[in-house]
C-alpha cells in the first residue's frame, strides 16, 4: 500500500469538519479584536505597567488577558506602544505572549482538547508561552532598540509591506470623543470582518493541508517520526511555521495530530503563534531582518528544548 493515497471524499469530509469547528472561533477572535480597536484607547495598555523591568516584563506577558490580540494584529499594536514609550523588552514580551496568553486562546484550546485532559493541556500551553515570552523579553533588556528596530519603523515600514494585512488599534475610533456608540459598533464590525477575512485565509489553507495530511498519509509511515520526541517536536514546530495558523484556532488542528506525542503538539501550539511564515513577514515590518532571523532561531531552540526536555517531565508529573 502506498504511503500516500488521496481521496476527495476523505479530503472534503475532514476539511469541512475543521472549517466548521474552527471558523466560529476565528470569528470570535476577530470580533474581540474589532471591539478593542473601536472602543479601547491604546494608551490604556501602558497604564498597567510597573516601573521595574522584571515586573514590567512579567506584567507585559499577561496583558493579553485584558487586551487579547492574536498574532495577526499584534505587530502594529506593539509598534504603536513602542512609539508611545513602552520599554522594548516589554514590547517583545507582549508581542510573543499575547497570541497565547489570552482568553480566546484559553477557551479554544480547552475546547479543542476536549477529552484529552483539556485543563492540563490549556494550562501547560499558557504557562509555556508565558515563560518563553518573558524569557525572551528579559534577554533583550540590554539591547538598544535602535539597533534592531527598522529605521523609520512605523508608517514607512508598514507601507513597504502593504501586501500584509494587519489589524491595529485605531487612533481615530477610540480616541475620538465625538464618535457615537453606533459609529464605534459599526467600525468594530467592519474591522472584525476584515480581520476575520485576513485570518480565515490562512486558517483555510492550514485546514486543507491538515485534511490532506490526516486522511491521505498512511499514519504508519510517520509513526517512527512521531515516536521520537526530538524528531516529532522539531517536525511539529516546522509544521506550525508552514501552516501559519491563527492562535485562536490552531489548537483544533493540533488536537487532530493524534499520532504525535502531546509534547510535540504543545511545541506546535507554542512555537506557531510566536513565529511562522506569516509572522516572519509581519516582524520584518518592525524589526531588522537579522533580528527577525535570530528571534526565529532562538524561539525554535528554546521551545524545542522546553518541549523535548522539560514538558515530558511535566506531563509525567501530572499524569498526562
Amino acid at each position, binding site marked *: 500500500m502506498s504511503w500516500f493515497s488521496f481521496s476527495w471524499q476523505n479530503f472534503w469530509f475532514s*476539511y469541512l469538519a475543521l472549517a466548521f469547528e474552527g471558523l466560529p472561533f476565528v470569528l470570535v477572535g476577530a470580533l474581540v479584536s474589532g471591539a478593542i480597536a473601536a472602543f479601547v484607547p491604546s494608551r490604556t495598555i501602558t497604564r498597567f505597567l510597573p516601573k521595574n523591568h522584571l515586573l514590567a516584563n512579567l506584567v507585559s506577558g499577561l496583558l493579553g488577558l485584558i487586551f487579547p490580540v492574536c498574532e495577526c494584529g499584534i505587530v502594529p499594536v506593539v509598534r504603536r506602544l513602542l512609539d508611545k514609550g513602552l520599554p522594548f523588552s516589554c514590547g517583545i514580551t507582549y508581542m510573543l505572549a499575547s497570541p497565547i496568553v489570552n482568553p480566546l486562546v484559553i477557551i479554544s484550546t480547552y475546547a479543542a482538547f476536549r477529552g484529552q485532559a483539556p485543563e492540563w493541556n490549556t494550562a501547560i500551553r499558557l504557562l509555556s508561552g508565558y515563560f518563553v515570552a518573558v524569557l525572551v523579553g528579559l534577554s533583550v533588556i540590554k539591547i538598544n532598540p535602535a539597533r534592531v528596530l527598522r529605521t523609520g519603523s512605523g508608517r514607512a515600514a508598514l507601507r513597504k509591506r502593504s501586501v500584509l494585512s494587519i489589524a491595529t488599534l485605531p487612533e481615530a475610533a477610540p480616541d475620538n470623543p465625538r464618535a457615537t456608540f453606533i459609529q464605534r459598533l459599526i467600525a468594530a464590525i467592519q*474591522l472584525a470582518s476584515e480581520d476575520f477575512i485576513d485570518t480565515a485565509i490562512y486558517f483555510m489553507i492550514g485546514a486543507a493541508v491538515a485534511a490532506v495530511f490526516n486522511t491521505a498519509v498512511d499514519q504508519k509511515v510517520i509513526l517512527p517520526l512521531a515516536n521520537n520526541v526530538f524528531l516529532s517536536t522539531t517536525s511539529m514546530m516546522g509544521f506550525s511555521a508552514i501552516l501559519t495558523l491563527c492562535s485562536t484556532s490552531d489548537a483544533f488542528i493540533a488536537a487532530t495530530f493524534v499520532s504525535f506525542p502531546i509534547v510535540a503538539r504543545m511545541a506546535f501550539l507554542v512555537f506557531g503563534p510566536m513565529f511562522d511564515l506569516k509572522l516572519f513577514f509581519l516582524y520584518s515590518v518592525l524589526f531588522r531582518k537579522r533580528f527577525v532571523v535570530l528571534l526565529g532561531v532562538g524561539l525554535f531552540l528554546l521551545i524545542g528544548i522546553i518541549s523535548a526536555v522539560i514538558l515530558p517531565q511535566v506531563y509525567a508529573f501530572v499524569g498526562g
Partner: protein
Amino acid sequence: MRLLVAKVLNGITLLGLGGVLISFCLKGRIDQYLHPQFRSWVLIGGIAFCVAGTIYLMAKKSMDCCVDGECVHTNRQNPWRAAAAFGLIVLPLTAGTYLSKDGYDKQAVLNRGFVQDVSKLPGRNTIGSANAQQGIPPGALGADQDERASAEPPLPQNSSSGGPPKALAKASDPPQTNGNADDGSEQYLPRAADGNVALEVTDLLYGENEESLRKEFTGKTIEVVGQYLPGSKPNEFKIVRMLIVCCAADARPIAVSVQAQKEVSAADMSWVKVIGTAEFQESGGGKAKVTFKAAEIEPTDPPQDAMLY
C-alpha cells in the same frame, strides 16, 4: 471603484460563509461533522457571519481603522486580494457542500489505523466514563448525575425505513445462547426492539479490558451496528465505527473482528447490523480479545449519529 469592488467581495465572502454554515445546520448534515457540543456554535457563527456581512455591505463609510489613519487592511482596498479571500474561503466550502459525502471511505480508515487499546482513547480512561457515553446506561457503572444527563440513548437498532432488511448472510443454526434471561442485567443493558442486547463496538472493546463486562456480554444475543470492512477471509470482516472527540477530522476508527458462518458480501463501509454472540479469548493480564460470532448480518440505515463520541 476598487474600494467598492473589494467591499462587495468581502461582504459576499461573509454572507456566503454564513449561508454555508446555516445550510449545514438546517439540513442536519452538521451532525456528521461535529461533536454535539460544537454544533450550536456553527449555527450562531453562520448567523453572525450573515449579520456582519450585511452591516459590512450596507455601512456607508468606515472609520479610519489603522495607525494614524493609514489603513493597512489591504484587502479592503485591493479587489484582487478580496477576490483571493473569496476564492480561498467561500468557494472551497461551497464546493465541499456539494461534493462531500459526509463520511470517510475505506482508505481513510486504513490510513488512520485502528485503535488497538480503546482504554487509551482521549477521555476514555475509565470504564465508567466511557460507557456513560455509549450504549450502557451510566447508572449501571456508577456514573455520576452529570454523566447520566449527558448520556445518549442507545442508537436505533432497527431498519424501519426502506422495508424489511435483506439478510446478507444467515446461519442455518443460530448460535445457542442461554437466551437473554433476566439475570439482573435486564435492568441496565440496552435492548433492541427484538429483545437483543444492543451494544456499540466500543462496549465490546471495553469488555476486552473489563472482566465484569465480559461476564455480562458472554452468552447473550447481541446486536451491533457498524460499517462493513472486509477481512482477509471471505467469512471474516470488521464492523467499524469512527470515534470523535471534537470533529470528524480527529476521528479514530475502532473495530471488532467478526466471523460469519459463510461468505459475506457487502459494500465497503456500508452500514450493517450484526446479530450474534461475543466470544472473549483470554490474553493474560486480565485482558481478552473479542471476536464476534455472527449469526445474522443485515444491511441497515446509518444511525442518526454516525460517529461515536
